[in-house]
């Protein structure tokens, strides 16, 4: 963002109480304010005053969101009517614009609708229009699986020199049609509900030399390796991998700083394995791993290789129900996490798996902050006091740098006091401070899962200093 010049002295000298402060801002700043409105709201500001009448025609940020589109008139009740109106509105807005740059162009469709090839043609031509006006941020979301819309994007999207930020959901030209990808300025890419095969992924990283942020959500991953020199932030969220058991996903990303992984599941309740991964991320500093769903591990070896690849991190979050398996199977093969300073573990039942935490702590000699959240969450033993005596026999932790331990638990978990006592015994460092917070009751027996609003109401925060 380049600083824009404006005469602030002039603004400052006017009497503040009744001055129209917004209108006195320069056009470019008002445009940024308008960029947070939908296109319909932005266009409607034309009646505010003469100053605002033509402002929208040069607005470089347009957000057409069908779910927020209001239309009145005789067709308002029917979704087809709304779709037609929406198409007309977008076309009219683009026709009435001045020929100025268009930095942001968002289009999102929602709801079931009947599309014809005429509609597809319209939508394609909007995108072509936007691409010709120095487009930097492009978002295109479609809510429904639709064969027509699937082949909708013009191939120009993949060869546009000005694009910096692209988000695409559920819509794509057929993968075979993309012959070349050349996006020299692209920094951020978000893909949702898209099949990614190896050829496409390779082409993508060759064609985007400065790509820094990649977010894959609900994608079908058919690739076996990601090789990128430039990537800094990678998020793989609820993606399904279709690799065979003996294949491995390779992530070779030497400049990666942050890595988020959330395991995937499919809507048809088919169980998918976590793919075996080989992480080559030497500069990684932050990682967040969430393995929550009841999904299987590769049959022959229960080792996904995630934890081993994270040995350089400073800040690590492990959460989800299956974290206990991850720790149990992979920890013995791990090196020391010598850089790790800040560790968060969520949803690990300490009364059953205290030993896992203990052995993990012994892998982190330089730990400074430990955050244990929702210990006892969703474990098999329910509300009964049950402490696995075997699990408590662990080596003491000599973390000399440990400063704070933050424990949050549900009040129904009666094993917590005992676990806390063991925690106290295990951590030999007398300077460490343990903060205990109760989160209220956890509705285990009702089978409803955690009701957050109710818990917030009843939760009583109390902190105790044990040392």
């Amino acid at each position, binding site marked *: 963002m380049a600083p824009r010049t404006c005469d602030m002295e002039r603004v400052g000298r006017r009497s503040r109480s009744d001055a*129209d*402060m*917004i209108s006195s801002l320069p056009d470019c700043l008002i445009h940024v304010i308008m960029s947070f409105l939908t296109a319909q709201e932005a266009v409607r500001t034309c009646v505010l*005053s003469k100053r605002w009448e033509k402002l929208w025609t040069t607005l470089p940020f347009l957000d057409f969101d069908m779910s927020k589109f209001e239309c009145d008139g005789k067709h308002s009740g029917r979704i087809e009517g709304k779709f037609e109106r929406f198409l007309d*509105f977008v076309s009219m807005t683009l026709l009435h614009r001045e020929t100025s740059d268009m930095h942001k162009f968002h289009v999102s469709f929602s709801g079931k609708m009947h599309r014809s090839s005429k509609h597809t043609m319209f939508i394609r031509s909007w995108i072509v229009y936007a691409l010709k006006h120095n487009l930097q941020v492009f978002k295109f979301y479609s809510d429904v699986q639709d064969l027509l819309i699937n082949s909708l994007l013009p191939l120009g999207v993949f060869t546009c020199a000005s694009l910096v930020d692209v988000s695409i959901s559920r819509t794509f030209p057929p993968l075979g049609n993309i012959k070349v990808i050349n996006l020299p300025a692209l920094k951020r890419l978000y893909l949702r509900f898209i099949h990614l095969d190896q050829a496409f992924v390779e082409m993508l990283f060759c064609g985007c030399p400065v790509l820094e942020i990649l977010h894959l959500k609900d994608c079908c991953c058919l690739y076996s390796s990601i090789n990128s020199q430039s990537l800094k932030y990678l998020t793989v969220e609820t993606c399904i991998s279709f690799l065979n058991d003996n294949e491995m996903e390779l992530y070779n990303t030497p400049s990666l700083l942050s890595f988020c992984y959330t395991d995937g599941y499919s809507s048809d309740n088919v169980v998918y394995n976590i793919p075996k991964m080989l992480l080559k991320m030497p500069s990684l500093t932050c990682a967040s791993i969430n393995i929550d769903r009841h999904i299987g591990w590769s049959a022959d070896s229960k080792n996904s290789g995630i934890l081993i690849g994270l040995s350089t991190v400073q800040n690590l979050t492990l959460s989800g129900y299956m974290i206990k398996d991850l720790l149990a199977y992979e920890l013995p093969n791990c090196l020391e996490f010598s850089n790790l300073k800040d560790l968060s573990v969520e949803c690990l039942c300490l009364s059953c798996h205290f030993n896992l935490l203990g052995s993990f702590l012994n892998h982190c000699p330089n730990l400074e902050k430990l955050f244990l959240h929702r210990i006892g969450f969703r474990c098999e033993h329910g509300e009964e006091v049950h402490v696995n005596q075997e699990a408590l026999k662990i080596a003491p932790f000599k973390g000399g740098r440990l400063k704070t331990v933050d424990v949050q638990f549900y009040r129904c978990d009666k094993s917590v006091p005992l676990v806390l006592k063991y925690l106290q015994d295990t951590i030999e460092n007398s300077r460490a401070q343990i903060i205990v917070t109760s989160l209220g009751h956890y509705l285990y027996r009702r089978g409803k899962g955690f009701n957050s609003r109710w818990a917030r109401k009843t939760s009583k925060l109390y902190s105790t200093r044990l040392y």
Partner: protein
Amino acid sequence: MITLISSDKRKFHVLEEVANQSLTIRDVIEDRRGRRRADRIILVTNINSKIPEKVIVYWLRHFLMPEEIAHASMSHKKAEKLKKWEAKFFDTDIDTLNDLILAADSLDIPSLFDGACEKVSDILKNRSAEEVGEISKIENEFTHEEEEEEIPSENAWVWRNEFA
């Protein structure tokens, strides 16, 4: 340590790492690196003292949450806390928001700039022209005829979605 001086001569001492969140200040410091202590004073002439206070509070809060951590802990409590804090931070009157926009623009602090603009845009959302005029003091200088005839016929497609 860096000293910022506002237009009404108040001094603000800030750690260099904290003030670096302003890209303008970062460039100035980079330019003057290696010089004497006197050069670590930056005049912010176009901003009155109320705004630097707010900006520095914003800096300090964001300094505790570097970008990498923010990215890795998207689902994390810390990120939620920050969001709540920001909502409270931007919940002020429109004049302060305007000043914040101008300050964030000239100091080049992208996240503060976007946050303040978003808050102002809320005023324009889901309100009639009269309501917006009242809150933001935008003067409506259209004549009666213009309001009755010209605007509706010119912009019919905006309002009624009918295309004559």
